[in-house]
């Protein structure tokens, strides 16, 4: 692997070495399995600020950062009014590749295996990564091109032992051969952080599978301005194979946008086209024979909702079909947040027609009956798109009803959104998903968090 001239945008240790759970910078323990990250094998030898010779003075510091002598430059965050840039744990000097201690660095003695001492100032400072003798430089992926989100979830490591009874082997069908319990599926919980935006999806607590899907990515417009793309889809449970519908729609819409935006298509037009492309992808599913497991007397065509957003340095475009939503939450919380989408739902239609007020309509059991969706049996596809030019920085929250059922009004959503959502989008997405799960998790939950304006750094590195 080539040496990177700059500290990578993402932490070098992007996933837990034990369970492959994605990590945040600053984590001391893996949030999923509790793995002690301070015991993680040391970093590969291509950390930018380390010298292999052991002679610190001759270390080839990147020129601009050299002024600060020993501390690497923290990644820039964009926008103003955000928390100060922090150093990532992995940017800190450690031992060399031979496992021996480096000469003491002024201000921070990097003793191998030394537990963190003192009270950390930033979340990052408390974590140390040791390096094993002869560490393999290729072990940790650095800045790699953003892979399609659905393809990135890693299979569980190690042997397959049933998670329910811990005794049985898991057979090829994904069921335990001892107690019969279905094993967690890849899509039960997924997280991704791509450049400055992130998404999290979860099966929830009451549904047996996750029928939501998302696609996030970032690209560059012809004028070299960055563009952030987030798509979130919610499979319609009363239809057959809703999980396949949402996955196909999110992928098709994401691919369509990623192809159109770099060619200079106006983001709003590109969003419209992406919804059409997604609808074709879902329609195509109806022609395929259903899975052997689905034996319903009357088969409905696979269907799903879609909501997506494109964020550039100046523009915020949303597009949707169905009742998945996008919210705008300004960074300055003294200004009002807003919902950017109008549901294609019974409740929304009742409210729009003036037949009921919002509270009545959403209390009705028909509230969630959707009146627009992607799928072969949709009456007439009406992709909605809207374009905004926010005059201040903020965050776009793109989500399914699994979240907004627990924070319907924009104010409520803004209240639970962490203040540092723009700089820590993955954390923010987790917090929102956690809010839905704490509230009961009655449905699948999917949240994508997109900062506005699109920060220029990192956008072109994919």
């Amino acid at each position, binding site marked *: 692997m080539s040496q990177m001239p700059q500290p990578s945008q993402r932490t070098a240790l992007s996933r837990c070495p034990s369970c492959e759970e994605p990590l945040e910078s600053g984590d001391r323990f893996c949030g999923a399995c509790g793995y002690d990250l301070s015991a993680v094998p040391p970093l590969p030898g291509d950390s930018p600020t380390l010298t292999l010779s052991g002679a610190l003075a001759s270390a080839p510091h990147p020129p601009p950062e050299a002024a600060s002598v020993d501390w690497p430059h923290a990644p820039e965050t964009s926008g103003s009014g955000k928390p100060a840039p922090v150093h990532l744990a992995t940017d800190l000097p450690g031992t060399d590749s031979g496992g021996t201690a480096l000469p003491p660095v002024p201000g921070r003695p990097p003793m191998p295996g030394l537990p963190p001492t003192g009270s950390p100032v930033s979340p990052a400072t408390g974590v140390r990564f040791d390096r094993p003798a002869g560490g393999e430089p290729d072990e940790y992926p650095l800045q790699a091109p953003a892979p399609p989100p659905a393809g990135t979830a890693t299979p569980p490591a190690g042997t397959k032992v049933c998670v*329910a*009874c811990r005794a*049985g082997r898991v057979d090829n*069908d994904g*069921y*335990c*051969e*001892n*107690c*019969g*319990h*279905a094993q967690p599926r890849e899509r039960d919980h997924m997280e991704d952080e791509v450049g400055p935006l992130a998404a999290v999806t979860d*099966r*929830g*607590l*009451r*549904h*047996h*599978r996750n029928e939501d899907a998302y696609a996030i990515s970032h690209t560059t417009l012809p004028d070299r301005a960055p563009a952030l793309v987030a798509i979130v889809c919610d499979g319609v449970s009363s239809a057959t194979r809703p999980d396949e519908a949402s996955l196909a729609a999110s992928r098709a819409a994401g691919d369509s946008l990623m192809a159109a935006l770099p060619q200079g298509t106006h983001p709003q037009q590109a969003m419209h086209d992406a919804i059409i492309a997604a609808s074709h992808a879902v329609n195509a599913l109806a022609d395929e024979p259903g899975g*052997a*497991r689905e*034996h319903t*007397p009357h088969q409905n065509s696979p269907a799903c909702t879609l909501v997506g957003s494109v964020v550039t340095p100046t523009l915020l475009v949303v597009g949707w079909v169905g009742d998945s939503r996008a919210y705008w939450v300004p960074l300055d919380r003294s200004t009002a947040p807003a919902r950017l989408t109008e549901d294609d739902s019974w409740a929304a239609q009742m409210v729009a027609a003036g037949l009921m007020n919002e509270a009545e309509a959403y209390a009705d059991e028909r509230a969630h009956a959707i009146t627009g969706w992607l799928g072969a049996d949709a009456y007439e596809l009406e992709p909605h798109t809207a374009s905004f030019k926010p005059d201040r920085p903020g965050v776009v929250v793109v989500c399914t009803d699994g979240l907004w059922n627990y924070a319907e009004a924009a104010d409520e959503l803004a209240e639970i959104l962490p203040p540092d959502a723009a700089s820590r989008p993955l954390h923010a997405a987790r917090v929102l998903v956690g809010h839905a799960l704490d509230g009961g998790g009655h449905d699948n939950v999917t949240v994508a968090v997109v900062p506005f304006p699109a920060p220029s750094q990192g956008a072109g590195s994919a």
Partner: protein
Amino acid sequence: MANFSKSNVPQFSVDVYQNEYLPDGGREVSAIVTVTATGGGTVGTGVSAPHLYSPGQGPDAAVAIMVDCSGSMDYPPTKMRGAREATAAAIDAVRDGVHFTVIDGTHVAREVYPGGGRLAVADATTREQAKQALRRLSAGGGTAIGTWLRLADRLLSSSEVAIRHGILLTDGRNEHESPEDLKAALDSCAGRFTCDARGVGTDWEVKEVTAIASALLGTADIVADPAGLAGDFTQMMETAMGKEVADVALRLWTPLGTEIKFVKQVAPTVAELTDRRTEAGPRAGDYPTGSWGDESRDYHVCVEVPSAGLGQEMLAARVSLVIPQPDGSAQNLGAQGLVRAVWTDDMAASTSINPQVAHYTGQAELAQVIQQGLDARKAGDVDGATAKLGRAVQLASASGNADTAKLLAKVVDVVDAAAGTVRLKAKVEEADEMTLETRSTKTVRVKK
């Protein structure tokens, strides 16, 4: 010659019909498992030509025809004549190359053809010789069906063939041996060959004949009129000739802590299999299904799984088809079906009943209430019989089981089929009652 790699060995497929959704705390999972064998030979029907098979086609088979020659077969004399003609028709339907024998059954069993403890190999000559030998059949003696079956078993096992089948014809009760003797004979023959049983006339015991067919995984029926024997025998033989794979077992895997409520065949007839389980490794058991040609059968599997929480999913049963081998291993026939359990708080999902499960639950109840109704009638319990047979009429009508409805109409006067209101007929032909009892287990499939 017995070779399973032949292309005409059927391909098995398994389809599962169920409502997998359970309410919170729900434990009982019911599923209809449809097993279909295709690509093998064609099952003979009344209309197909008797000599469907050319020599060398299909796996080797051996057939034993057991003809009741007890003294009662001469009353009326048409009965013996009918049996002779029927046997001749069956011999005509034996395809070339198949091993066969004819057994004369009284209180003892005798070989009629070819004799000497051997089996004949069918061709034009042997078929003619066998039919000549039938002339020697004459009525006289008692009835000890167990001895016939044991002789058939001995003869059939003398040849190395894939399919072993018997056809048994009787006209009277098994009076010259104890029920225990017959039971012992059935136990020793079970799994060694399959056997269809037919009762001719009305002097035989329905439960005896159905027990033989059930134990030996064949069909049971009544041939009230001896003149109808020939056609019936031809059809039975053709069905037997259509069999391609023998000793197929339904293997059921269930997770830890699961109780199997029942396993039964529900189409084409109801046959209880629950107690016929043979353990086959951890948490798995085999249920015998006999031999298969080109055909489809439905099974109703009901299990009680340990309850899991809402949003959980588990495998309640895995159904596969195997041919158990003598060494304890099993040849897997490839197809398998999954019975699942998913706990949901969606009441609409968890309270609906799968149409197939509902249908066959009704068909099984139909067979049961007919049996109970006829038993009550024999015992003189008019009210009980009326209630049970009324329910039977209602079920037969609702499920579209027209054949059974017709048979019921010969035993009761139907006032209102939908409500199940009936009156017992004062006078019922014995043959009609026996026909109803014998055929009570016949089911129809779900209207699709």
